[in-house]
C-alpha cells in the first residue's frame, strides 16, 4: 500500500511540470511558424516598396534586390501626377463603394428572409444562393459578355467598355457569398430575440433595422470587407468588359498601361501596386476591432 503510494507520488508531482514543459514547446513551435509565415506573407509588399523606391537605372543595374542605394520618390510622383493612374484609382474606388452598397442592400434583406422567415422552399433557395457562388467567374464571363451585348442590341444601352457597367456585374460575385455569410449570422441570433421584438410591437422592418442589424454588425462588416476586396481586386471581368484606357480599373490599368510591349516599367508597376493595395489594408485596420468584438455576448444566457 505504502509502496504503491510512493511509486505514484513522484510521478504525480512530475505530471504538471511535464504538462508545462510540453506547453512551452508548443508555444515555441507556434512562434517559429508564425514568424516564418509573417516573413513569407510580408515579403511581396516589402519587395514592392523596395522596388518602388528605386530608379529605373538602379533596377536595370540589378543591384541587391533587398536594398535601395539611391532611394527616390520619382515613381510615386510620376503616378500621382498622371491622370491615367488617378482615373483608374477613381474608377476602382467608385465601383467598389457602389458594389458594397448594392451588395448590402440585396444581401441583408435576402439573408434575413431566407434565414429568419421560414417559408416554403426557403432552405432550398438558401442552398441555391450558395451554389451560385461556386460557379467560377472564368466560366461566367463569356455568357455575361453575350448578355451585355444582347442588352446593347435590344435596349440601346451600351454596357460594354463602360467602367460603371462593372457595378452591375460585380454583385453577381459578391451577393451570393455575402448572403450566405449573413444567413449564417442571422441564424446564430437566438430566436427569442425576434419573438421578444414581435411582442414588443416591432414589424419585420423594425426587427431588421433595430435588432438584427446592430446585433449582426460583426457579420455585416465581414461581408462588407469581402465585397470590397472582391470588387477592388477583380481582374477577369474588367479585363474582358473594358478596353479604352479611361475605362479601366486599377488592376487591369496597371498591367495594360505600365507594360508597353516588352518594356516593363518595374519601378512604377511596383509603386502602383503598393498604393493600390493600401485602401483594403486601411479598411481592414479600422474595421478589425468591430469584426472581432462579439456583439451577441449577453443576448441570452452566457
Amino acid at each position: 500500500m505504502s509502496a504503491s503510494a510512493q511509486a505514484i507520488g513522484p510521478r504525480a508531482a512530475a505530471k504538471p511540470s511535464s504538462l508545462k514543459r510540453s506547453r512551452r514547446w508548443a508555444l515555441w513551435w507556434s512562434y517559429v511558424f508564425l514568424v516564418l509565415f509573417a516573413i513569407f506573407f510580408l515579403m511581396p509588399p516589402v519587395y514592392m516598396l523596395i522596388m518602388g523606391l528605386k530608379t529605373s537605372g538602379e533596377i536595370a543595374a540589378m543591384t541587391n534586390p533587398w536594398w535601395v542605394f539611391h532611394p527616390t520618390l520619382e515613381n510615386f510622383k510620376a503616378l500621382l501626377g498622371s491622370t491615367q493612374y488617378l482615373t483608374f484609382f477613381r474608377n476602382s474606388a467608385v465601383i467598389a463603394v457602389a458594389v458594397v452598397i448594392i451588395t448590402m442592400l440585396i444581401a441583408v434583406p435576402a439573408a434575413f428572409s431566407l434565414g429568419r422567415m421560414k417559408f416554403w422552399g426557403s432552405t432550398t433557395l438558401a442552398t441555391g444562393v450558395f451554389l451560385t457562388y461556386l460557379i467560377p467567374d472564368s466560366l461566367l464571363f463569356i455568357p455575361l459578355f453575350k448578355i451585355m451585348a444582347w442588352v446593347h442590341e435590344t435596349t440601346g444601352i451600351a454596357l460594354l467598355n463602360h467602367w460603371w457597367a462593372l457595378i452591375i456585374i460585380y454583385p453577381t460575385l459578391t451577393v451570393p457569398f455575402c448572403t450566405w455569410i449573413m444567413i449564417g449570422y442571422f441564424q446564430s441570433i437566438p430566436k427569442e430575440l425576434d419573438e421578444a421584438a414581435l411582442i414588443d410591437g416591432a414589424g419585420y422592418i423594425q426587427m431588421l433595422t433595430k435588432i438584427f442589424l446592430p446585433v449582426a454588425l460583426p457579420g455585416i462588416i465581414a461581408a462588407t470587407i469581402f465585397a470590397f476586396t472582391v470588387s477592388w481586386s477583380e481582374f477577369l471581368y474588367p479585363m474582358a468588359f473594358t478596353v479604352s484606357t479611361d475605362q479601366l480599373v486599377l488592376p487591369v490599368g496597371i498591367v495594360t498601361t505600365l507594360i508597353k510591349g516588352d518594356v516593363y516599367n518595374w519601378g512604377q508597376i511596383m509603386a502602383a501596386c503598393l498604393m493600390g493595395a493600401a485602401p483594403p489594408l486601411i479598411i481592414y485596420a479600422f474595421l478589425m476591432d468591430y469584426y472581432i468584438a462579439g456583439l451577441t455576448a449577453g443576448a441570452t444566457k452566457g
Partner: protein
Amino acid sequence: MAQVTLRKLVKHYDETPAVRGIDLEISDKEFVVLVGPSGCGKSTTLRMIAGLEDITGGDVLIGGEVVNDVPPKDRDIAMVFQNYALYPHMSVYENMSFGLRLKKTPKDEITRRVQNAAQILDISELLERKPKQLSGGQRQRVAMGRAIVRDPKVFLFDEPLSNLDAKLRVQMRTEIKKVHQKVRTTTVYVTHDQVEAMTLADRVVVMNGGNIEQVGTPNDLYHSPSTKFVAGFIGSPAMNFLPCALDEAAGGLRVRLSDQLSFPVPQERTARYRPHLGRGRLLFGLRPENIMEQRPHLEANQNPFEVELEVTEPMGMETLVYFLVQGMEVCGRVNPNAGARDGKRIKLVADLNNMHLIDDESGKVL
C-alpha cells in the same frame, strides 16, 4: 379586465399533435401555472396565447375577445423568456423602453414607467448597463421589467427560472410572487418544476401528453389528485403506488398489499370504495409523509407494521427510508432520531387518513 380563455385549443405540428383540445378559464388577476413533463404541450399552449404559434383548432380569448388571428403586438401581452432574450446592443433602460418607444409613447411617460418598474424590481442603478454586464438574476429582472413597463393585460412566463442556479431560483421565485402581489396582472406561467408551480400559483394546471390532467389550487392537487399522473407528479418524493386488492373483512373493508400486509380502510371511505370491491388492477397510493416512525399514541386509521429497510437518506430535518413491499420500492419519511439505518428492521406507521385508491386501467383516482 383581462381573463384568458382557451376553448378546445388544438395544435398539430405537421401530423404530430402537441395540444389536443384543451379548455381553460383564467380569471382576471389570477396567477396560473402550467406544469408538466417536457413535451406535454405547456409551452406550445403559452406560445399560442402569445400569438407566436399558429392555432390549429379552437379559440384563444383575451379579455373576452377571440385573438386567434391577432398578431402578438396587438394582443397586449408581455412575455418573459427562459433565456431572457434581452437586446444585447441596448442598455437596460433602452431594453425596457423599446416597446414603448415603438408605440411612440411620450418621453416623460416612458421615463416614469421605466423608473417605476426599476424600483419594483430593485434595478434602478443598473439602467445604464448593457445586458452582458449583468448577472443571470439581474438579466431576468430586466426581462421582467421589460414586461412590467408595458402594463399589459397578461404576463406570460416561459420557464423563466430554468437558467438560474438552484439558490437564485428560489430567490427569484419569491421575487416573482412579490411582483405579482404588487402589479396584480393576470399571469400564465409555464414550468416543469412542480415546486415552482405549487409555490407560485393561485391555480395549477397539470398537463400531460397534450391534455389537461387536472386544474386546481396547489392544495387541491396535492391532497385530492384526480388521476394517477397528478398524484405521482405533484409532491417530492413522489407518492408510493402499490398494487392492492380490496377485501371485505369483519367490520369493514381492507386493502391487501401482500399476504402479510393489509390495512383497514378508514370508516368514512367505506361507502366510496365499496363499489370497487373485488375489482382487479387497483393501486394503493400513499405519500411518503404518511409513512412514519412508530409513535406511542396512534391516532385513528394509523396502522403499525414492521419492515426491513433497504436504504436510508438522512436529509437533516427528516430521514427518507426505502423498503420493499412485494418487490416494489416504498418511501417513507421518519424523524432523524428514530434510529433508521440501512438494513435495520424498524416499526413504521401507515396513516391511511390520506390514502388514495386508483384504478390502474383508467388512471383515475377513485
